[in-house]
């Protein structure tokens, strides 16, 4: 298992899996699979996958500990960047296909519509995390500051769930499910910080030796 996790193939596999949702959208586009309202379908699909990748990224740290596979850290950046990738597609769909670059209308939305305010905030917060995701930035910022900055993902996850919850008409079960998962993932961190299990090997969130930069 560990041999596979540290091989270059595992990283390639994660990248391929991360591309499945966009490949599926492209396939659907050519096979009449985007429903009668393709723009809405694309908006929802890219939004769903942004939130899913944020959640998957948040799973890495607890998983490393719970299943004793510290090497999972190798995939965290890739998964986080996929969250940003789908977030960019989601935002682009909105600003281009929904608003047609009418920046005034976008501003009114951001200002007036709470679900867009909070979604937009989450997207903006993702930008510095994506920019500073390289080994060079970890070195430049120092591990402590870098870790502090990247805790923004907790807020991104919370804002993402609120964004979803506030936009549905009545079917709150799906956003609440994401909310419950995010709550568990964040509470695990709180518990881990204040009540560390005795004997558990502490693994640093960022390896002190920067890995070879491979995105």
């Amino acid at each position, binding site marked *: 298992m560990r041999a596979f996790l540290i091989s270059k193939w595992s990283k390639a596999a994660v990248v391929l899996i991360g591309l499945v949702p966009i490949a599926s959208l492209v396939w659907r586009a050519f096979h009449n699979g985007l*429903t009668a*309202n393709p723009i809405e379908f694309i908006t929802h699909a890219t939004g769903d996958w942004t939130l899913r990748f944020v959640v998957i990224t948040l799973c890495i740290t607890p998983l490393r500990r719970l299943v004793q596979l510290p090497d999972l850290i190798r995939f965290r950046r890739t998964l986080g960047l996929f969250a940003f990738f789908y977030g960019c597609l989601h935002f682009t769909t909105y600003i281009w296909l929904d608003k047609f670059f009418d920046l005034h209308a976008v501003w009114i939305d951001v200002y007036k519509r*709470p679900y867009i305010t909070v979604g937009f905030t989450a997207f903006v917060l993702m930008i510095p995390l994506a920019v500073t995701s390289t080994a060079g930035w970890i070195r430049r910022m120092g591990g402590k500051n870098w870790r502090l900055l990247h805790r923004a993902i907790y807020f991104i996850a919370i804002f993402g769930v609120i964004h979803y919850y506030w936009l549905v008409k009545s079917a709150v079960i799906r956003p609440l499910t994401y909310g419950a998962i995010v709550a568990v993932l964040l509470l695990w961190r709180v518990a881990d910080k204040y009540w560390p299990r005795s004997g558990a090997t502490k693994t640093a969130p960022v390896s002190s030796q920067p890995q070879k930069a491979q995105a």
Partner: protein
Amino acid sequence: MLIRKKPDLTYADLTPKAVYLDRRKFLKDAGLLGTAAVAGRSLWRLASPASNAFAASKLTVASKSPFSTTEKQNTYDDVSHYNNYYEFGVDKTEPAKNAGTLITAPWTVSIEGEVNKPRKITIDEILKLAPLEERIYRHRCVEAWSIVVPWIGYSFSELVKTVEPTPKAKYVAFESFYDRKVMPLAPYAGIEFPYVEGLRLDEAMNPLTLLCVGMYGETLPNQDGAPMRITVPWKYGFKSAKSLVKIRFTKDQPPTTWSRMAPNEYGFYANVNPRVDHPRWSQAKERRLGEFFKRDTLMFNGYGDQVAGLYNGLDLKKYY
């Protein structure tokens, strides 16, 4: 001079579209595969409820309606595969997949409340109550998308006349069919069922208010509200309740599903109004399915000439 009257056909007897479309294929298959295989398949099809449920039957339309728009119609595929019918799932594509469990024949609608002649009326009686018209209406969803649909039916007022509302009747409530056994996704929808919508009696009597039994020359597909729905083209789509089983005339304004669930977002009136936003999104524009750019939403969905008079003196910002 004795002309023997043919036995009347009923809603259930109408040839399902799947069957008449299949005849040609049937002949081809028969040649290729042999009759035995086809017979087996046909038996299978008869036994499978899904094919029956998705079948649409041809309707004979007596006349076109002057209320029809000349705008480009959406395709049958769009209108039957992009639906809000929360009893069958909240995703737009789910009703087309799941509504097959709804059995529409036999079907009875109970008309009750403040009327001199309450009655239970079958779908067959409804089909014969008045000549069927084709009405090509714009349909604007509260979610800011719209479609143009050639509905079939007649003015709801035709039905109202036969039950004679009492002077106390001021409102009409429409109740949709609900059975958890055939609608297993309904508990996840987040709204209460059975679905209830309502109109003021004068709105219900407006000739635009359509008792709708079909679309595109055929009976309604289940996901579009078979066998019978109401269609109120100047109001947001959620006012047009589907698969009706009860029509009740009342003194007081009936509590309606969406306005009970979120009264600040969905009013009883729900007239299409580009100047009154939904609290969470703008209603100024809409996306007509099939079009790339959004278009401006029209006051009363473009039916102001017929219905604006109903709301003289009413503050439409307050009574949204």
